């Protein structure tokens, strides 16, 4: 066990720290990851990712041929840590970088990688995920959006739902049914679809927060070149699971959680309750400490998983545990903030008396969405029990 950085790593850390100090954009008063609706925010988000990429700090572990640096995981870890420290904004192209990118590196064709990976890094092309359908949520494999192979093209018909970022995404990675007669897991394929294709309609869905962060996406005779198939025909479920694994890792990341904890502690010091700072109240102190301990647990757990990765060990169900624990924790942090704020808690964005720009109640709602998205907490528990503990599987239709 060694938790210290080598001299080279420390030098790199200083370099990143210096770069961030010079280059951080002005903080937005209202800032949530994965939730872009205002075109100016989208432009700013793309510019920020591009800047980070040009500095060499995005997806550093990707192979050089596709715009990465083939760097070891440590360097990316250092960048992530430094970004947490200064509460830097997140990446707008996160779903490309963390979900479809790694999937293409593992399962894509050479042509797909060369075509799609570089613009993911530069934020020139933003991706969204076409998984859930109105009739297929937790039972994802029952999905019905069809893709019929006609010559060199698929013709796609159907509907996706809860599609975050579809309103400005350039591409969608999509699960479609290519064999309606096969058992449900064996008739699915994984397609990359250009969002500008004729026949695609995006209709915004307003979330509980009041933002239109996700959408319905309709496909009506959408033509997709066969070359956009990832993996084999009808072999999409395997690929989908690879992406789901990356999604759990993304949602289970503590990067943002650590930032939110710092914000919560600042709030508790600044906001008065019963004539003293909330942070002086013994019950609040204990609650904050408990949250801090849970954050620390997941931060250290990420180091343990990082070490396992570096040692080439299979992560098992660790990603499901992280997704389950971290999304619940994010929600609990926001709830603690609301409780500390008392009557100030429910004040909406834009209210002049709202603290921290009224972001806490929005965060409280937004984080509940992340408990449900990417496989609900209940689905993660099924995975942990059945794959991790080998408890008897549920009978499934």
């Amino acid at each position, binding site marked *: *066990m060694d938790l210290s950085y080598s001299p080279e790593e420390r030098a790199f850390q200083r370099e990143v720290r210096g770069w961030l100090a010079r280059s951080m954009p002005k903080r937005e008063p209202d800032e949530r990851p994965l939730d872009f609706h205002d075109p100016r925010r989208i432009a700013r988000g793309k510019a920020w990712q591009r800047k980070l990429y040009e500095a060499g700090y995005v997806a550093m572990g990707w192979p050089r041929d596709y715009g990465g640096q083939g760097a070891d995981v440590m360097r990316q870890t250092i960048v992530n840590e430094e970004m947490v420290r200064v509460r830097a904004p997140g990446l707008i192209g996160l779903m490309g970088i963390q979900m479809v990118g790694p999937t293409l590196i593992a399962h894509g064709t050479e042509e797909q990688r060369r075509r799609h990976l570089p613009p993911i890094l530069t934020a020139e092309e933003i991706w969204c995920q076409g998984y859930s359908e109105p009739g297929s949520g937790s039972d994802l494999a029952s999905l019905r959006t069809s893709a019929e192979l006609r010559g060199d093209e698929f013709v796609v018909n159907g509907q996706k739902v809860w599609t975050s970022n579809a309103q400005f995404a350039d591409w969608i990675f999509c699960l479609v049914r290519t064999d309606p007669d096969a058992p449900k897991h064996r008739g699915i394929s994984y397609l990359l679809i250009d969002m500008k294709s004729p026949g695609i309609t995006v209709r915004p869905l307003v979330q509980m927060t009041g933002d239109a962060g996700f959408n319905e996406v309709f496909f009506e005779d959408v033509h997709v070149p066969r070359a956009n198939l990832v993996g084999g025909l009808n072999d999409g479920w395997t690929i989908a699971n690879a992406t789901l694994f990356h999604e759990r890792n993304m949602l289970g990341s503590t990067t943002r959680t650590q930032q939110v904890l710092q914000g919560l502690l600042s709030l508790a010091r600044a906001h008065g309750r019963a004539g003293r700072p909330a942070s002086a109240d013994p019950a609040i*102190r204990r609650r904050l400490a408990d949250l801090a301990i849970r954050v620390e647990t997941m931060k250290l*757990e990420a180091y*343990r998983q990082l070490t396992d990765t570096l040692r080439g060990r299979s992560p098992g169900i660790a990603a499901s545990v992280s997704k389950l624990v971290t999304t619940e924790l994010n929600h609990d942090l926001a709830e603690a903030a609301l409780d500390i704020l008392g009557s100030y808690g429910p004040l909406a964005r834009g209210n002049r008396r709202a603290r921290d720009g009224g972001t806490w109640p929005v965060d409280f709602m937004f984080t509940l969405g992340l408990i449900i998205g990417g496989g609900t907490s209940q689905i993660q*528990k099924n995975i942990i029990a059945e794959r991790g503990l080998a408890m008897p599987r549920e009978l499934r239709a």
Partner: protein
Amino acid sequence: MIDFGLSDDQQALQRAAREFLAAECPPSLVRDTAKQPDGVPRALYAKMVELGWMGLAVPEAQNGLGLDTLALALVLEELGRVAAPGPFLSTQLVIAALVRAGTVAQRREWLGRLLSGHAFGSLAYLEESDRHDPAGIALRARRTRGGYALTGSKLFVLDAPGADLFLVAARTRPGSGAAGVSLFLVARETAGVRVRPEETIDLTRRVGELTLRDVTLPATALLGGEDKGWRLLERLLDLGAVGIAADSLGGAERALAMAVEYSKTREQFGRKIGSFQALKHMAAEMVAEVEPARSLVWYAAYAFDHRPREHARAASVAKARLGDVYARTARRAVEMHGGIGFTWEHDLHLWFKRARWNRVAFGDPDHHRERLATIDRY
């Protein structure tokens, strides 16, 4: 390069300890030991001595194995897994005190006996106030011509019934602050020393009251500087906290494993109860708490040796979390067993009850949360 994992040697130690204890410390031994007055399973401890465990974290120059606190934590985790009885952790604390602050003469008198299992140690610091801070140390140590005279009572003294040597925290200067706390080595056979075992619900551990009535000690019984004992005591309490956290991790893993195992064999409604989501989700929640908590134990043990500015914080974080996690896991494990889990005959209550003592030993979760809040300047 960050390497937050066990080395090959550490994994080998862990495996060896697990296999050894599975064979040598079955629940039947835990139950038998509960009937003995001193609570020390002598045959088991003789074998642990042979393995060098008493001196695991003692420098080789002082006849130990020269390993670190992480290695000690790995062994404690395995001891917790089998709910091992006996004064292992308490003796480790007294050994650590001697190694860190003992004079040559003190070490010569006691270290050999403690390492060879001919004597066991116990740390006596709590009193009626049940405070884990300097204000909790009220027992007076008066200066006499040749040394000190101690009068008063220590309560909740872990492993007192089987101990031969007590490390006693006393006040050499009136007040309630850290200054004025001193530590004394008190042999059990000293005149005026009385040990009265306390009954607790935990069958796997022993605690007792230590009464000192005009106990006369030579000046050489003082361990470390006069009035300056708090710093060492705090370090020992942190080591105790890390040790109990490690024990709790092992215990929680065991309780979880027992519950999962049972759910795969017991049938109701014509199917294995482990196929019901109600139980699956309970088990998954246990995993989601227990697995990541391992990182806290590792880090606290690592920090104890390598991160002097962070070790107190890390110990509090680990102790607070594992205190909660072990108690919750054991409780859920009983529930997953249904009626059989509530019986005296089934072994699960050994862990369920140990979890209650682990929760309070060396400071309960609230104590450590408040300590963290203070360290982090909330």
